[in-house]
């Protein structure tokens, strides 16, 4: 069964700010459809009385005390950045507003 269509892939591409060509859209639609179909197999075994699991371990309320701990040295942070300027991460220009 087709679980994703071309329009949805175009929409996802837009959300991800990816410029997709027609052939890429077709290619990804096919790939994503295969992935989703494979995952959909799970719903064949999951009965309605089984709640979805988000956490395999039955545990709640694990907290950290509000006590500061040292972070990373900025030189180390800068090393991990693809581009760096004026003590900040340099990123490509943003065409749109934050989500």
């Amino acid at each position, binding site marked *: 069964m087709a679980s994703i269509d071309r329009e949805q892939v175009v929409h996802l591409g837009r959300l991800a700010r990816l410029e997709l060509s027609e052939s890429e859209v077709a290619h990804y639609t096919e790939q994503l459809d295969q992935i989703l179909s494979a995952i959909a197999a799970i719903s064949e075994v999951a009965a309605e009385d089984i709640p979805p699991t988000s956490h395999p371990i039955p545990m709640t309320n694990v907290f950290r005390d509000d006590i500061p701990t040292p972070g990373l040295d900025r030189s180390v942070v800068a090393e991990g950045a693809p581009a760096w300027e004026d003590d900040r991460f340099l990123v490509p*220009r943003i065409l749109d*507003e934050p989500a």
Partner: protein
Amino acid sequence: MTSTAFDHVMTEFEPVIGLETHIELGTHTKMFCGCSTEFGGDPNTHVCPVCLGLPGSMPAVNRTAVESTIRMGLALSCSIAPWSRFARKNYFYPDMPKNYQISQYDEPLCINGFLDVTVITEDGPKVFRVEIERVHMEEDTGKLTHGGGAGRIHGATHSLVDYNRAGIPLIEVVTKPISGTGSLAPEVAKAYVAELRELMRALGVSDVRMEEGSLRCDVNVSLSRPGQSWGTRTETKNVNSLRSVERAVRTEMVRQAERLRNGDRIIQETRHFNEETGNTTSGRSKEQAEDYRYFPEPDLIPVAPSEEWVNELRTTLPEIPSVRRARLQQVWDISDFDMASVVNAGALDLIEQTIDSGVSEQAARKWWMGEFSRIANERGCDLVDLPVQPLDIRQVESLIASGDLTDKLARSVFEGVIAGEGSVAEVISLRELKVVSDDSSLIAAIDQALSDQPDIAEKIKSGKIQASGAIVGAVMKATKGQADAAKVRALLLEQLGVSE
């Protein structure tokens, strides 16, 4: 925009508003890591693998942030969910290095509360109950600076990101749609945010420094014709001051009314508020919730507050601000209008502290709402920023009571204290501000004045007591205003053997 344009809206439409308010909590560390939340650090110095979203790092929830959120929920009369989860909100924007923000979606920590807010109208104060949909926890995002194109997004060639703010605990308080406010919608929105801020401060969960952007509001507005279903809403993002909240609602109401009258439809969209012009401009069409592909955060286990824990936190709640204001207004015995002025001036705490330090209610209000408000106004600062303490007022008031200072001299003392000339005692000695109460020196000054103006002396002797003003004035001038005028007058009449 004229008020007429706004009045015109109300002839045809009813507004429905909704507010989403994000407030940074005052914790020492971030929501999911131990990085400092201190404001103003050098860029990217309060960061670690967790808040930089580095592979393999795992978030851990700040207990104090959870407690603050529960306390806020309780203060808003919310139900505290016995089971609550974090969720990932996925989006593509570099203000979060993970490509998602950890937030809460369908299982918020607090739901269904309310906050009563008071708006002063021509017919006296009016209370509106603002219903709260939810209070949830999330993390703040990093700060972007747009390079090139004069710091604006349009024309920018690149952006620079500082992640110090990324991961700072936020609570988001979401109202249910607020209807029935009519033309008071802008004022209700403003009063609601002000009340929320007071509540956060009273709880000690945040000091809400709006000038540092620690409170941000998204303002939803829609219009409908009476009796018809609600119209399409717009969401104006990042409105960052009380005044702006009011303006954003007002301008958006006027804009929407104009469109509707012209037969245009309202597009559901995000809009931006321009602080300078007070106008809103179109942003992108709003992404749908499904675009964020929320799903339960697998790296964090659920928060399930026990009844005992919630009850324990309930005992830590202070008197809520509206209750406190009502109590103080009654104790001080002042009108709704005077109380509103005190609150608007930010003088409530200061007056209360001054009274607690032993100053009379009247004197405390007189100084803060009179002289100090005037000086703060001149300086363009808040009352709380003036370098004058409740104990200074107490000291000056006791000197007035003992006759060592007059009201006029006291004003000069405070002028000196606020100008940074020193303590009350230092200013008094520096400016030589002491009432001349020594009778013999006052009598000498009176004699001098009488001999300077013999005609006036005669008039007084002949019973024209009102003429004594000229002599009293001369004595006050001779003593540089440091005498008690009433006392000078009494001594003068005694000296001339005239009785009233």
